[in-house]
């Protein structure tokens, strides 16, 4: 098999955190006893498949299907046949039986916590909240004069402290904006954090303050007049990552939003249903 000598794609973000497959998957390939299998090759009574198995190409003569149970396979098996799916009644009915342990797969790079950082700025530009801090109560950003949001279904909008709105608001089932202003503070409704993809908070030159349900709080360094700092929020699965982002130059709000890729979606006012 020829080696893949193509250069690493740096332009595809999702490939940068690629993790090495676990050894348990790769190991048995070398030890596989499955021959290249011409049609006449005698098949074992319970064929052991340890490598890539595309199923459908296997001829009936080469691989008589065992009557009792499917072949144990530790490799990729895309075969629709060979008794592959055929869920048993018990596995189909028992949701708990298929419960995985907490995923230990790709984890984001280590980052300081809200407990470690008192001020987000040049020294500590990023911190990550835990799953509880990211989901309980409200995330309060004081000192913000504008906030922008993008929901998981890519509904985007922005709102300023004085009420100027662009794009589409996202209202949660509790009748609160997913991101909005209340008594001068920008608020994120963390009960619905899984509806939020990202947000941005812009200040007016004063430090921003961030407060959590557990009374943990920190500030965001405002930068200098030539390079103001905004606070970006990104949800990664169940945790929120907060980052102080210095701007190249002072910019009007629309330009800041554009620079961060917040394109307000068209808002359609809901219409009452007509009575006949």
């Amino acid at each position, binding site marked *: 098999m020829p080696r893949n000598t193509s250069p690493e794609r740096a332009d595809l973000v999702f490939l940068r955190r690629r993790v090495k497959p676990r050894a348990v998957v790769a190991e048995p390939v070398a030890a596989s006893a499955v021959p290249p299998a011409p049609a006449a090759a005698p098949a074992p009574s319970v064929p052991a498949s340890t490598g890539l198995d595309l199923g459908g190409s296997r001829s009936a003569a080469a691989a008589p299907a065992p009557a009792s149970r499917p072949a144990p396979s530790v490799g990729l098996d895309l075969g629709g046949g060979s008794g592959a799916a055929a869920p048993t009644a018990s596995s189909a*009915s*028992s*949701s*708990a*039986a298929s*419960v*995985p*342990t*907490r*995923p230990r797969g790709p984890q984001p790079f280590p980052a300081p916590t809200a407990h470690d950082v008192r001020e987000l700025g040049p020294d500590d530009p990023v911190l990550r909240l*835990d*799953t*509880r*801090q*990211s*989901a*309980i*109560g*409200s995330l*309060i950003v004081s000192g913000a004069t504008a906030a922008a949001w993008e929901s998981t279904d890519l509904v985007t909008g922005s709102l300023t402290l004085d009420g100027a709105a662009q794009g589409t608001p996202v209202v*949660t*089932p*509790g*009748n*609160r904006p997913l991101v909005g202003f*209340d008594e001068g503070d920008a*608020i994120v*409704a*963390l*009960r619905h*954090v*899984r509806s939020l993809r990202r947000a941005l908070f812009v200040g007016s030159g004063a430090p921003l303050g961030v407060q959590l*349900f*557990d009374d943990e709080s920190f500030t965001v360094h405002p930068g200098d007049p030539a390079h103001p700092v905004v606070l970006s929020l990104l949800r990664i699965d*169940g945790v929120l990552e907060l980052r102080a982002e210095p701007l190249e130059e002072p910019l009007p709000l629309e330009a800041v939003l554009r620079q961060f890729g917040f394109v307000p979606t068209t808002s359609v006012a809901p219409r009452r249903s007509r009575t006949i």
Partner: protein
Amino acid sequence: MASLVAGANAALTAENPGLTSVMVGFSWDIIPSRGPQTELVPIAVLCGDDGKALSDDHLVFFNQIVSDDGSVSFASEADDEEIDVDLSRIPAEVAKIAFFVYVDPDVRGPGDFSPVRSASVKVSTPDGRELVRFDVPLAEARSTRALLLAELYRHRDDWKFRALGQGYSSGLAGIASDFRIDV
């Protein structure tokens, strides 16, 4: 199907031989409001012999959806919310699993249980057969912000389910304090 009153218990595994997993479903009915509305959040806490949470990771709710050992998982399907428990996979150090519902403490008028008309918790088999149900008495819980609904606990080699309905006026903070959780 048995209906429990507060304080009563049901011997789940003793009365249902072969029962290895259960679904704990939460339902409620809230008076609709045009303004900010009470939002209830169910949470399961895996506790040790001392009745306290084994760790902050031994919580299961909508944003921490599987316990470390995989025995308790959050799902949201048939009921308003649902937590699945695989009894056979619960580690030996877990003596009980406490089930709460708390009012999300959003700073914009979090509310309390006043607008909650009814609330119940039920235990079912994985195929949906209801084993036991507890309709929570809310008369004295109106001003509270969290409720300890019920607990699933070990009794010798079996698992029992106890209906509770104990209110916390201090909400999630009170639960965190009582169960030694850092939230």
